[in-house]
């Protein structure tokens, strides 16, 4: 369809000039919307394929461990963010002394993690020659702050949480990276740095995200801190 309403359509990604069927939406526009919403809903609710992810991450040469949060299922996870920030009772992780721990967490979009986490993690590790990196950890029903008890238990000076972000109507597969110096339960969101919208080809590429993160990691190690004192990088943290 091409007409003078293209003036509106070309000016914004918003769903302008959709037309009408009576006072409602034309059927094709209705189905387009449903398809976008379905993709977003499925991104939230389709469980992470942990075995496949562990196998992909294993190609980095690092050991890969798995943990779950204290939220036993998706419904609880969505209603109790506090439980998604704690490890399930009885979780034990091997302690050590590392520069960095990387936690790959399903978050609100397991699909984003399945699609983009292996490529992102590989691109990050490539840029960290000489860093001692703890075994990688795959975490399910996990919020960003679950990285705090994981990083602390592993004995890491910095934790990076690679997590699926809340799906938007046109971005069901967006990955976020959160860096926290000195991980331990109780860290505030203002003590983290965030890189958002890792989602090639529409958002950041793995290389772009890894480059930015590597810069933040070096700066954090030098400063012995993270968060607002480090650098105002990206949007405010959501949770």
């Amino acid at each position, binding site marked *: 369809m091409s*007409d*003078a*309403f*293209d*003036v*509106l*359509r070309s*000016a*914004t*990604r*918003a*769903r*302008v*000039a*959709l*037309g*009408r069927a009576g*006072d*409602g*939406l034309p059927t094709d*526009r209705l189905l387009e*919307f449903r398809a*976008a*919403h379905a993709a*977003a*809903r499925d*991104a*939230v609710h389709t469980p992470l394929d942990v075995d496949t992810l562990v196998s992909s991450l294993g190609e980095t040469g690092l050991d890969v461990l798995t943990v779950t949060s204290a939220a036993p299922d998706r419904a609880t996870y*969505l*209603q*109790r*963010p*506090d439980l998604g920030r704690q490890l399930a009772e009885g979780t034990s992780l091997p302690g050590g002394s590392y520069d960095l721990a990387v936690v790959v967490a399903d978050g*609100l979009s397991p699909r984003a993690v399945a699609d983009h986490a292996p490529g992102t993690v590989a691109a990050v590790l490539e840029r960290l020659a000489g860093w001692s990196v703890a075994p990688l950890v795959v975490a399910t029903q996990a919020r960003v702050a679950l990285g705090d008890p994981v990083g602390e238990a592993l004995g890491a000076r910095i934790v990076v949480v690679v997590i699926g972000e*809340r*799906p*938007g*109507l*046109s*971005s*069901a597969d967006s990955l976020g990276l959160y860096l926290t110096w000195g991980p331990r339960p109780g860290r505030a969101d203002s003590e983290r740095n965030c890189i958002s919208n890792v989602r090639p080809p529409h958002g950041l590429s793995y290389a772009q995200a890894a480059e930015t993160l590597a810069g933040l990691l070096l700066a954090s190690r030098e400063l012995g801190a993270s968060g607002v004192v480090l650098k105002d990088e990206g949007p405010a943290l959501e949770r």
Partner: protein
Amino acid sequence: MTARRATVAGHTYEFPTLVEVMAKATPARSGDVLAGCAATSEAERVAAQTVLADLPLTTFLDEQVVGYDEDDVTRLVLDTLDAAALEPVRALTVGGFREWLLARAAAGDEPAISGLARGLTPEMAAAVSKLMRNADLVAVGRRARVITGLRSTIGLPGRLASRLQPNHPTDDALGVTASLLDGLLHGSGDAVIGINPATDSPAQTIALLELIDAVISRYEIPTQSCVLAHVTTTLRALEKGAPVDLVFQSVAGTQGGNEGFGVTLDLLSEAHAAALELGRGTVGSNVTYFETGQGSALSAGAHLGVGGRPVDQQTLECRAYGVARHFDPLLVNTVVGFIGPEYLYDAKQVIRAGLEDHFCGKLLGLPMGVDVCYTNHTDVDPDDTDTLTLLLGAAGCSFVIAVPGSDDVMLHYQSLSFQDVLTARQVLGLRPAPEFEAWLQRMDLVDDTGRVRELTADAPQARALLAAAR
């Protein structure tokens, strides 16, 4: 104070303070579970409602949910309460008050219901709503008349206004204009043309205000603009001479919640006074706009009441209305499904909260609208927002929010579409604000029956408006 108790299904439940009675009497919602104040069983909920129904309304004058000495919202409410306005219902219990309201609503006695507003505390409104079913909230809500105005009149019988929300992820002028014109072509924008700015700065706010003002002036549209920046940003824009119609702010029901939003009551007073001086109204002088939403106090960790007890989110929401009404707003809306499933989990909870918020806001004297909306991790879809929208239309909701195709590309959530507003108006026989309706007629955007025309892009009416996008 002695504990209050009631027996349901052979078990006696005890509630140590008014805080527990209110929280446990609240219909189920995830935010109260998260806060740790929800009823632990359905029987306990009914027991709390039974206790609540027998409480005299004056209990809420003598006993506080959030302490007077600790919280300036409590002080604002109690210090400005109109004792005479409460007189018709002063002797009633909460349960009796519900029946009184239903009887007046059935008789169509709007003055009796509306006359109470300044005599009621937010907790009284919250309490009676907790006893009501959804249909009660609709039946009484539509008889609580609140009429406000600036350049259009909001809240008249038989009207449903809309906020046109032409947001853009980078505040791009052409992008905003495209959504704005799309909304006008669909008959939206009579409550306000209101943008959530991507960047909260005085310069950006001024640029967006001037953009909307230019469209309003060019087509002589009887509506008002708003850029929903922080109140301090709007004050700066106002000082620089920007065309500010409405001062906007998100508000919460506790002093701590408002501190979380970076505002104090003094700051709101200052902004209200500054906007009043501009005198930009033609049909009224209501110059503030507030947004609220259940869960905002909890998300700021400012949800505790007397004795450090967690207060339920619906009571706190009503207290936000106690803040808003002090500043004679043109518009107030709850953003009912935005905050996420940890506060309102699914459609049942969102629909219930939308009806509660509309009812309580109106009962307390607010020009109440609702942003009927959801995020993708909440169990809500457009079928559910249809249900809530039609219920709100039946409840006499003052306005709803509409964005192109339901998709807010800046805030990443779904609200109503312009088509949804048309559908609600058509199904329920509702019309836009009268001044805006007359403008739609002048522009020939509606037919003789008042229905918004389906225009092709080369229709003269469409071309006239599209000229603003070039």
